[in-house]
Structure formats: C-alpha cells, structure tokens
C-alpha cells in the first residue's frame, strides 16, 4: 500500500484536535504549538502532493477518473455503495495547498488569542480538516460528509470568539444558509443515486469517478442541475444567496474570516463545479448562460455595495462576494480558458482575502475600530500592513504582474469567447446575444473595485496620523510580519511566474470543460421546455399523492 498522503492531510488535524482537547486546562500555550505543528505537517505534505501532481500532469483529453493521483480506496458501508475514496487532480491539489497555507496563516494570526485557546484551536483544526476533506473527496457522500464537518466549527467559532455585536445573528444565519444549501444539493445526490442513467440501470453508488462517466437523462439533468449547483453555490456566495457571507465574515474572528473567505467559499465553488457541472454537463449547458447573469450581478452589485461600506471588514466581505462572482462567472463562460481563470482566481482570491482580513484583524486588534472614518495614517503606526494591503488591493483590481491579473483576464476572455455560442437555452435566452456585453460590464466592475480599494487605502493608511489617539499602539509581532510577507510573496510569485500554477489548474479543469464541450456539441434541447418538464414532475407528485389518498 502506498503512503496515505491525502488521508493524513485530511484526518491528521482531527487527531490534533483531540490531543489539544485532552490538554490540561492551563496549557493553552501547548495548544497553539500543537496547532502549528498540525498545520506545518499539512503544509509539508500538501507541497509534496502538489509537486508530485505537477510533475505527472495527464495529457489533454484524459477523462477525469484517470487524472486522479494518490487515490486511496476503502469500503465504508458496502451494502449501499458508500466508499471512502480520496484522490487529487490538478485543481484539488492546488486547493489543498491553498488550504494548508491559509490554515498556517490562521494559526499564526491567532497566536495571541487568550480566551479558551484549547477549544479555539481544536475547532480550528476541525474546520481545516473538513475543508481539506472536501477537496480530496472522490466519493459524493464523503464530500458531503466533510462539507458538513466544515460548517459546524464555523458556527461555534463565530458564535463564541466572534464580534460581540453581531455574532449570534451572523453565526445562526450562516449555519442555516449553508446547511440548507448543502442539503438541497444532497437531495440531488440521492436523485442521481437512484436515477437510471442513459442506457443502463441506476448507478447505486456515490463514486464520482463512475458518475462522471455516466450520462443522465436530459430531463433529470435539466431539473436537478440547478438544485445541485445552487445548493453548493450558496457557499460560493452566489447572488441572491450571498447574504450570509458578509455578516459571517465580519462577525468571525480574524483567523476564521481568513479561512472562511479564503478557503471555505472556494469549497462551494469547487463542489458546484466538480459535482454540478461535471456530472450534469447538459444541465450545465442549459442553465449556465442564465447563471452567468447572476454572477454578473454578483460582480457589479457586490462591488457597488462594497463601495458604500464604512466598516473596513464589511467592505472586504462584500469585495469577496464580488470576487467570488468572478469564479462562478469563469464557470459560466463554458470554455476552458474561463475555467482555468476561475481556478486561478480561487487561489488568488483565497490568498488575497486572507491577507486583507489579516491586515484588518491586526488594525482592529490595536485600534478597536474598523470604521474607515475613524482610522487614518496607519502607515506611520503599522508600516508593514500598508504594503500588504496595497499588494492585496492591486491583486483585487487585477493589476498585471500580480496573481489577480492572471486570474481575471482569462475569465473575461472566456466570457468574451462565449459570444460564439449558439444555444437557445433557458427562458429562450441565447447566450451569443449577450456574452460580449456581460464581459464588458464585468470589466467595468473592476473599475468599481479600484475605486473602493483606493478609497480605503487613502482613508485608512494615509492622511494625518493622530499620534495621541493611538499612542499606546503595539507594534506588529514577528509572526504577524511573517504571515503578511508569506501571503504577499505568493501573490507576487504567481503573478510573475504563472507557470507555477497555470498548467496544473488547467489540467484539473480540462476534463470538466471537455464534458461541457461534448454536451454543447450535442446541444439536444429537444423534449419540450423546462416548464414542461417541471409540469411533468408536479403531475407525478400529484399522482402519488392521489394514489396515497386513495389508498387511505
């Protein structure tokens, strides 16, 4: 048997969490050391997995099930087809590495936490384990299992260590939004489990490798694509289900905001792509042009709301909504270049937002305010933060030479290319009519981003430094500086050397794009309208109910 890299990456934080909880009460010191050890271990293994995956990229055109590396397979509940299967492709290897990096940053940034550190680190470890688990899961059920595992620690951490004014409201809202979303997706899972595929029986398995090779009947794809995609899309902050996210970001403690915006939202995007689009490509071709419009609202509306915010953390929360919209927009472009852009955007945004929240957390810890009107001249007090904030800001604006450009440019390119699509899809929208316009408007959204970020930089970091007001401000710790430098360097390196990430992400996205492409070619929008299909479903329900009433 091979060395179980992925299982150790995903499960070792749980082990560390248990050890941390068993520490005696007065040993909070050791809790953070153990947390750090867990994250470093995860990071080392993730780097190995990333490099090994990068070195053996599959040739283009390989089906997804064969692009997987480090596959481990164990039966779980065999009688109903549950298996423990983990493996990584190019994209998930990248995201696992991202999680490890942001997780490490999270532990470092919360180094000085003194309210019940044992519980804090234990829940943080569980959160990281859940996120890692989703990225490496190759079994639909396992994916769902880890997904839920990731949501719950969020609730406790926001409710307990969060911002006093909003934490109860925000944590409950976040949990209900995410759990309801995931359960809607899960119902779709069960439907796929029991639905006969084209030319065969029901699959009766959750193995995504088998699912990704099957073709579900068109009507099933058309009806269940939206629940599946949107259910996970809730976590990706897709408009109009983004509402939980800014509240959650703001109420969460810094480390949790970092993981939350940096990685957890990617979980939604990743799952909706890996499961939604990959399994139901025809449903995707049918609905994605419509979803493109939603993501456009995400991008522009999110940016506009961000511009209105006075609270620095809310501003970044809404900017996350806007940037995550770009990820989904890359998916909705339905071409490989868009997908690749979306993948890089996940990484770029993950690091960028983590950096943003780290900076905001450092400022808030020292000034106890996040109101931009009250802050000014921070460049004097905390010079390191200003550089980091500006780098992150430039990434957000898509400045060439930084990772943001590498991410956003392909997305817009992909959407622009979509003008060639000639499909009459949902509601009679023909994408060829408006993909070009969407691309242009979305690019204008970036201008809004530039506006609010520059405004924030101006008002928070520059301007007059009120030395008396902040006279007792602590300087940054070495750990804080290390975190800022680590994140900034990653953003710059990706921007300058795209080769470190672009090919591996592309290799992970290619199978999905291929499947979409095949579905587009088939473009079989026969079999009546969506309303017809829905009507049929309602009729089946009605017939069931009548039969049942008759039976009674």
């Amino acid at each position, binding site marked *: 048997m091979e060395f179980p890299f992925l299982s150790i990456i995903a499960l070792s934080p749980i082990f560390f969490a248990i050890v941390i909880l068993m520490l005696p009460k007065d040993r909070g010191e050791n809790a953070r050391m153990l947390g750090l050890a867990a994250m470093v271990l995860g990071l080392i293994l993730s780097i190995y997995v990333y490099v090994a995956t990068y070195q053996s990229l599959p040739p283009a055109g390989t089906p997804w099930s064969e692009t997987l590396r480090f596959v481990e397979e164990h039966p*779980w509940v065999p009688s109903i087809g549950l298996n423990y299967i983990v493996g990584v492709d190019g994209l998930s290897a990248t995201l696992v590495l991202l999680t490890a990096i942001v997780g490490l940053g999270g532990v470092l940034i919360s180094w000085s936490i003194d309210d019940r550190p044992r519980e804090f680190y234990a829940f943080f470890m569980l959160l990281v384990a859940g996120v890692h688990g989703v990225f490496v899961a190759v079994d639909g059920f396992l994916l769902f299992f880890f997904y839920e595992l990731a949501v719950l620690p969020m609730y406790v951490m926001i409710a307990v260590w969060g911002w006093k004014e909003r934490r109860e409201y925000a944590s409950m809202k976040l949990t209900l939004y995410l759990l309801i979303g995931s359960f809607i997706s899960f119902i779709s899972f*069960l439907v796929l489990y029991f639905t006969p595929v084209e030319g065969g029986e029901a699959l009766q398995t959750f193995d995504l490798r088998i699912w990704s090779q099957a073709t579900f009947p068109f009507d099933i794809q058309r009806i269940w694509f939206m629940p599946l995609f949107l259910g996970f899309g809730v976590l990706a902050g897709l408009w109009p289900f983004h509402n939980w996210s800014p509240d959650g970001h703001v109420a969460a403690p810094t480390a949790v905001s970092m993981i939350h915006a940096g990685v957890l939202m990617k979980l939604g995007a990743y799952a909706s792509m890996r499961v939604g689009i990959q399994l139901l490509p025809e449903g995707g071709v049918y609905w994605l042009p419509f979803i493109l419009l939603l993501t456009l609202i995400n991008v522009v509306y999110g940016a506009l709301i961000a511009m209105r915010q006075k609270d620095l953390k809310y501003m970044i929360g809404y900017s996350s909504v806007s940037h995550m919209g770009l990820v989904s927009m890359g998916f909705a472009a339905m071409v490989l270049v868009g997908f690749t852009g979306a993948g890089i955007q996940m990484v770029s945004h993950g690091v960028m937002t983590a950096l943003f929240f780290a900076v905001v957390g450092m400022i808030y810890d020292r000034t106890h305010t996040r109101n931009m009107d009250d802050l000014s001249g921070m460049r004097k007090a905390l010079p390191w933060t200003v550089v980091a904030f500006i780098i992150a800001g430039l990434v957000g604006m898509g400045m060439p030479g930084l990772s943001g450009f590498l991410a956003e440019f392909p997305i817009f390119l992909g959407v622009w290319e979509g003008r060639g699509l000639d499909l009459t899809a949902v509601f009679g929208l023909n994408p060829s009519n408006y993909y070009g316009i969407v691309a242009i408007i979305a690019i204008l959204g970036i201008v809004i981003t530039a506006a609010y970020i520059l405004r924030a930089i101006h008002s928070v970091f520059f301007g007059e430094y009120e030395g008396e007001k902040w006279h007792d401000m602590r300087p940054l710790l070495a750990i804080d500086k290390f975190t800022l430098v680590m994140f900034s360097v990653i953003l710059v390196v990706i921007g300058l050397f795209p080769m470190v990430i672009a090919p591996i992400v592309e290799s992970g996205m290619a199978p999905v794009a291929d499947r979409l492409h095949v579905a587009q070619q088939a473009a079989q929008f026969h079999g009546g309208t969506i309303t017809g299909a829905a009507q049929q479903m309602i009729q089946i329900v009605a017939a069931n109910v009548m039969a049942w009433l008759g039976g*009674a």
Partner: protein
Amino acid sequence: MSPNITLSWVLALAPEIGLLVVLFMVLVFDKLFKPADRRQVGLFTAWGALAVLVMTVALYWVLDQPSAGWGVEDSLFWGGMMRNDLVTFVFRLMFLSALFLTSLLSMDVPRLQKVEYFALLITATIGFSLMAASTDLIMVYMALETASISSYLLAGFYSGQTRSSEAGMKYFIYGAFTTAVMVYGMSLLYGVTGQTSLYFIGDLFSGPEIAAVQPLVLLAAVLITVGFAFKTSLVPYHFWTPDVYEGAPTPFVGMLSTASKAAGFAVLLRVFLSGTLGPANTGSEWWAMLVAMCIITMTLGNLVAIFQTNIKRLLAYSSIAQAGYTLIGLVTLTQDGSGASMFYLLMYVFTNIAAFGVIVIISNVTQSDELKDLSGLNRRSPFLALVMLVAVLSLSGIPPTAGFFGKFFLFKAAIDAGLWWLALIAIVNAFIALYYYLGIIKYMYLYRSEEDDVSIPVSRAAQVGLVVSTVFIIYLGVIAGPAFELTRQAAASFFPG
C-alpha cells in the same frame, strides 16, 4: 430445528436469565455484601449489566446463538412465544447498554442510591428485552406490562416530591388506559382468528379471506397502535412525554427515552411487518395511518420543542420528533428501512443517554433543569460541554456523529421506496430541529453565568459512562458500516420468505 433443543431454548432466554440473576443479587445486596458505601449497589448493577452484555455478545459470536442463518421456524422458541433472532439480539444490545450506562449515571445521585431503584431498572430491562423477543400477542402484552409497571414506579421514584409523583401518576393512568385499549384490540384479533401467534395470524390474513373481516381488523389495528404509540410517544399519544420527562428522575429519563422507546419500536416493527394487522403493503389502511402519524409526530415535536425553556422538556419534544423519524423506516416496508430504524434506535441510545447524563450532573449541582443552567458550561466543565456538543450534533444529524448516518440511512431508504416526499418533509424537519439544537450549543459555549468559575465536578463513574457513550456516538458516526450491516441483516427476519 437446531440439534440440542433444550439447550438452545435456554440459551434463547439466556440474557433475561442473566438479568434475573443480577436482579436477585441486587435485591439481597445489602444483606449479602454489607456495603459501607451507598454507591456500591449502582456499581454492582452496572457490572452485572456489562457481564450480561458480554455474555449476549459472546453467545452470538462464539456459539452462533442467534444465528444469522436461521429461518423463522428455527428461531421460534418456547412454543412460539418468542423469537431469538438477530432483531432480538440487536435490541438486547441496546437495552443492556442502556442499563449499563444508566446505572453508571445514577450511581452518584444520592436519592437514587437504593436497592429498589436499581432492581426496578433491571426488571424494566427484562421487560424491554422480552418485548423485543415476543412473537405472540399474549407475550407482547406480558412483556409490555412488565416493562410498564416498573417504569411507572421509576417515574414516581422521588416520593415526596410533587413533580415526580405527578409524573408517576400521569404515566400510570395514561399507560393503564392505553394498554387496556390495546388489549381490547388484541382480543378482537383473537376473536377473528382464534390465534395469538403473530405469524399464524399473519398467514391467515395474507390471503383474500381477510376481506370478510376487514373492518374488524382495521379496528384492531387502530386500537393496538394506541398501546404501541404510547410506548414510543408518537403523536397523538405523546401528551405524557414532556410531563413525565420533566418530573421523573433524570437518569431514568435517559433510559425511558431510549430503551423504552426502542422496545416499543421493536414490537411495532414485529407486529406490523408480520402482517398481523393486515398485509404489510402500502395498500393497507394502517400504512396510511402510520405515515400520517409519522409526519405529524416529526413536525409537532420539532415545532413545540423550539419554545421550550426547560432542557428536559426540550429533549422530551425532541425525542417525540426523533420517534417520528424512526417511524419512517417502518413505513418504507423494506429491509433497508427497518434496518435503518434499528440503527437509528441504536445510535439514539448512546446519544440521548449522553445528553441526559450531562443534565443529571449539572442539575445535581444547580438543582434545576432550566435551559439557562447550561450557560457557561464550557467554562465550568469543558468535558461536559464537549459531551453535550457531540450528543446535540448527533441528535441534529451533523457528521461526524452517529445521528448523521442514522438520518442518512432512513432518508435513503425512504427515497429508495419511492417516498421521496416523506424524506423531504423529514429533511425540512431536521432544519427546524437544527434551530433549537444549535440553541443548546449557544448556551453552553456563548452565554456566561454568574458561577462561571465554579467548576462542576464529574464523578469517575459518570465520566466512564459519558466517555463510553461519546466514543460510540463518534464510532457509529465514522465507521457506520458494521453496525448498519448487522441491523440490516437483522431486519431480514421481519420479512420471512
């Protein structure tokens, strides 16, 4: 038939006989051991329960009693009065674990350190165990009464305390009445068929002849359901639940909400799936009735639970809702479904006993059972808070706890049987439930109380009980495979042929 009839007849009753031995030793405990410490009797009961549990498992593993390969004929013993099959085995595991954990948790409650209390716990367990085994109407009734009478006494055990006496009295009156109604239903069945064996009656009713007596059988089904629904606290026979849970001694409530409920479901599954009250298919009248009860029970339990401020009442309504979920497995009428029900009950034993165990310890200190007593629990005792967190997660069905798999197996079985709308209702209910379960977490971890720095001591015995439950909750939530395979295999014996 197995080779040595006499021996296997005895072996079929071995766990109950073992419990009887423990019972007699407990009864003469004071004379026998002259203990210096009042806690000894509880400890002795716990060891006894553990010994019987080990013996039951050993019988299955080593001697293959009961064997998975037995047909209906092979597993009927004592003149068809009881069946020693995997179903009985699985339920015995639940009851004996419940007895073991409950005795551990009761040990340190001063008012419960009496021989009578532990003796009654054991007789109740014998009753539960026989309920799960019985395959004859008379036996069902006898076993049910054995369990019930012990339970009435236990519910009112805090004599001199109004709440507890009220609980005992209420439970008794309600129980006596519903049991009488049930016996009337059974007498109707006997009148129609002249038989008392579930399987004989099931055979008689499987043919077209049932049409002639259809109305009578339906009436019998309704009346018998009253008795079983009372035991399992299904709506509309749930009214006793919150009051009794609130008043009865808390350690016993843990047992009442799990073992007693499981025993009720055991007979429910046996009687309905054997076709005693009309063939087990979706065309039967009782099927529609049970589906309706299932939906109403889930919904009502969850909605009312939201407004509770007493933690025991909250868990009472939650346990009503959980009974509703469990019923889903029965109404699917499939092997997977009944297996899922049994798995659900199994995990529920550990989950709810853990939850009530935590409350026992807290109310020992605070002398009340209000939800707000949980405030600041995380600061007062991180261990108790963690156990409660795991239990609450399991109740609400979030991984990596057993409740997640319990719900998953149930919902999957429902969708598999074409009852996807029932699964949908259950899922919506699970979300309503999430609201108040998360509320408990909020009290423990977020709110602070004035006695934040007064830590809550946890005795060794209680620690062992809680750790064992927690380990099982996590174990069943991560490695659900073996347990589910066992219950699923066991469920095969509900469907002979």
